[in-house]
């Protein structure tokens, strides 16, 4: 299995998904070797976590992480949301880094551009498999797809491509000439089966990428309920005035997640009710623009930016929030939506969100329809019975999807193609 990010370091939900899925597959008898990029250490230090796992260098053998046999390959694609320009910029910055705690012995081998680095990663993966007998390759997203394609050519291995996000979601456009789009499309064509995380994404693959619907299997992500920790209890101490009504945005502050629609909604609600407060938990490339928008609308006292929050604090916000808005422009699945439901928080969610397909009780909107979002926020505040019904019914959404059940669907494909 060619993974991408992995706990504790991740910039999206894919790390959690990879971990849970790999574990469940191992539990069901699959013999899995998970190949992961080895992140540069400063990334982990900066994130403020204890990594909890030993980070292997290329010379080391296989390790076991969360019961999964794992191999880490040093590389410098530091995010699946990377584009060619971003890669170049980051690499130069990295190579000029003088901080002795963040030195990276592999710095000199990284490819000079993103595509070269992807090719280099692929070559490393092919070399790694020289003495091993594998039956099938399971690749996550476009960034590992080149390695899967090379394994197909050089080792004669079929591969399954598991799509968690497409370029269409990430950029909000359908530029069929972009390098990433073409690479994604080629990989989908080369794969023996394609897995998507929702019908919504399946439709994008069929409509935009021209992939045969018969080839695509939808396997939804599952969600494991976490038990609250003492830290979590502590984090519940966010100061909240009783008459305040809190609305949350949790996620990366980037185009795909539609943060500007969240602020636009605030601008429509606050003049009607100044007790409604909007909280943004997350960071991203659009943060400066969002801060400017808040200032322009004069919303400084009602919209609060918390930056990226550790899970315990996020959980606390879920608990305190009276509503959560997910205004995503395009979201293949949206694990955040399931987290919201898991906390029984009333959810206002964009129609372009795959998780909708498994959430029955929510308020659905078009991501750009901030008039309707404002109406929903005001209605949620005005009618406690609406909140109560959504909170009570949220429980009905749960417990339908487990990683074990999702893994068993994937096991069926493994058995068919190995």
């Amino acid at each position, binding site marked *: 299995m060619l993974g991408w990010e992995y706990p504790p370091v991740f910039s999206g939900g894919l790390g959690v998904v990879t971990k849970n899925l790999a574990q469940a597959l191992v539990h069901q008898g699959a013999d899995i070797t998970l190949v992961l990029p080895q992140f540069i250490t400063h990334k982990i230090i900066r994130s403020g976590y204890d990594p909890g796992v030993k980070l292997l260098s290329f010379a080391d053998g296989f390790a076991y992480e969360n019961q999964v046999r794992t191999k880490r390959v040093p590389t410098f694609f530091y995010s699946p949301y990377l584009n060619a320009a971003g890669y170049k910029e980051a690499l130069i910055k990295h190579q000029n880094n003088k901080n002795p705690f963040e030195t990276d012995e592999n710095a000199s081998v990284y490819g000079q551009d993103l595509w070269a680095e992807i090719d280099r990663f692929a070559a490393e993966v092919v070399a790694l498999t020289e003495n091993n007998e594998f039956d099938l390759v399971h690749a996550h997203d476009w960034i590992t797809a080149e390695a899967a394609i090379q394994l197909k050519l050089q080792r004669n291995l079929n591969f399954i491509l598991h799509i968690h996000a497409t370029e269409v979601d990430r950029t909000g456009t359908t530029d069929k000439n972009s390098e990433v789009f073409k690479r994604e499309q080629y990989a989908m064509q080369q794969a023996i089966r394609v897995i998507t995380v929702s019908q919504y994404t399946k439709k994008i693959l069929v409509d935009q990428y021209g992939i045969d619907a018969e080839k695509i299997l939808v396997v939804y992500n599952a969600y494991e309920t976490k038990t609250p920790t003492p830290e979590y209890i502590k984090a519940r101490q966010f100061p909240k005035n009783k008459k305040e009504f809190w609305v949350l945005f949790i996620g990366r502050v980037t185009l795909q997640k539609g943060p500007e629609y969240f602020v636009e909604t605030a601008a*429509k609600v606050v003049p*009607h009710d100044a007790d409604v407060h909007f909280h943004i938990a997350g960071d991203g490339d659009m943060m400066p623009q969002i801060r400017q928008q808040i200032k322009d609308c004069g919303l400084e006292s009602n919209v609060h930016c918390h930056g990226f929050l550790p899970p315990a604090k996020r959980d606390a916000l879920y608990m305190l929030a009276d509503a959560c808005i997910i205004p995503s422009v395009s979201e293949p699945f949206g694990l955040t939506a399931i987290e919201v439901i898991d906390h029984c928080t009333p959810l206002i969610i964009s129609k372009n969100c795959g998780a909708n397909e498994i959430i*029955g*009780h929510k*308020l*659905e909107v078009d991501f750009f329809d901030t*008039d309707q979002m*404002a*109406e*929903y926020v*005001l*209605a949620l505040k*005005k*009618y406690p*019975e*609406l909140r*109560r*019904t*959504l909170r*009570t*019914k949220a429980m*009905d959404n749960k417990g339908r999807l487990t990683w074990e059940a999702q893994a068993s669907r994937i096991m069926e494909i493994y058995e068919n193609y190995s």
Partner: protein
Amino acid sequence: MAKSICFYFQVHQPFRIREHKLRYPPENHEYFKGVTPQSNEEIFDKVSQKCYLPTTKLLKELCEQYPNFHCAFSLSGVFVEQCERYTNLGSEVLECFQDLAKTGKVEYLAETYYHSLSFLYSKAEFARQIEMQRNLMIKYFDQKPTVFRNTELIYRDDLGEFIRLMGYKGVMAEGWATALPDDNPNLVRHAHSIELGDSDFKVTQAHKVSETIPDHLNILTKNYLLSDDIAFRFSQTTKSDLPLTADTFAQWVDESPGDTINLFMDFETFGEHQWEDTGIFEFLRHLPKACADRDIVFRTPSQTIDHFEAQHNYKATEFISWADAERDISAWLENDMQRNAFKEISRIENKLFAHLDSKNEAIQEVLADFRKLQTSDHLYYMSTKFWADGDVHTYFSPYENPYDAYINFMNTIHHLDWRVDLTLEQNN
């Protein structure tokens, strides 16, 4: 004794509510005009074309052709009001129902004008709404109803007693096992009699329709299996005997134990729920002949009650209805939103209680709007019983989800509440 079929069709159209935003309160009080995506009149016209016009015409032919054919209707007051109001097809539809009345073979039943749950919150309002609908039946069909049906066949022993004391001789109810001592819906029943409190008794006497109170109240119970074979399962291909023919159905009736097979269903079954291409009209056309071949006759509810001797009691200590798998009132009053909306209706009803008979025009105007909001459909749209019965709720709802239904209703009724206060203040 020859077995009979008792056909009763429910005809009802709610006044659906137009979109009401919190941020943009409406400029006028026309809550029921400009409803999106389809206006009330557009829906009325559509259903008229598909069902009301063709089916009433067919039934008239059957009444004229077969001496043994009879049937019954219950028309909600709000349906008749739509006939009066909608200029395109309204009067034509009403004439068709009048033509049926003129055959002398069709009975019109009593019900609450607003197709409401009023029995649950105000006996006075309940009695008033029955009276209002009765006046329409006298006006348009020259018939004084003697048999009552409550909204969605909601029934309980005290409701039966209330209706008996008003002077009605029969009530339509669901043939649900919990109320039937022997699980046979095909017999005329006597209502289990209980005593009402003084204040309720007074209300019945203030609104009674006959000088003599019947000794017993007769209950006709819906045979839901055979009724649903037509209403819900007619075009489903899962049953082995399909396509269902009139002859097969007559055979099922013939094989059923008891005296009367009570087939109660929405009139829209014909042509609207079951489209013409399913063969539903052909089925209906051939049914009287297929039944005559087996010596089965058709009787109206009144004829059925008069013809057969009532047996055993129909006993309902809890509410029974014909809705959803539960057959209780959970289709309207299950979740917090529904109960809250219901509470708002009761609260405003309390405010207006002293003015229910007011002749003041302004008060009459808010009363009429308030009463249209009492129509049970509004609560039905708020049902969150998604996974089992929910599909039926979704089919009938103009909203995308129960939450939108609740929000729009609450926004509207709060606006109305504000008008009620204003009007009462001005007229004090």
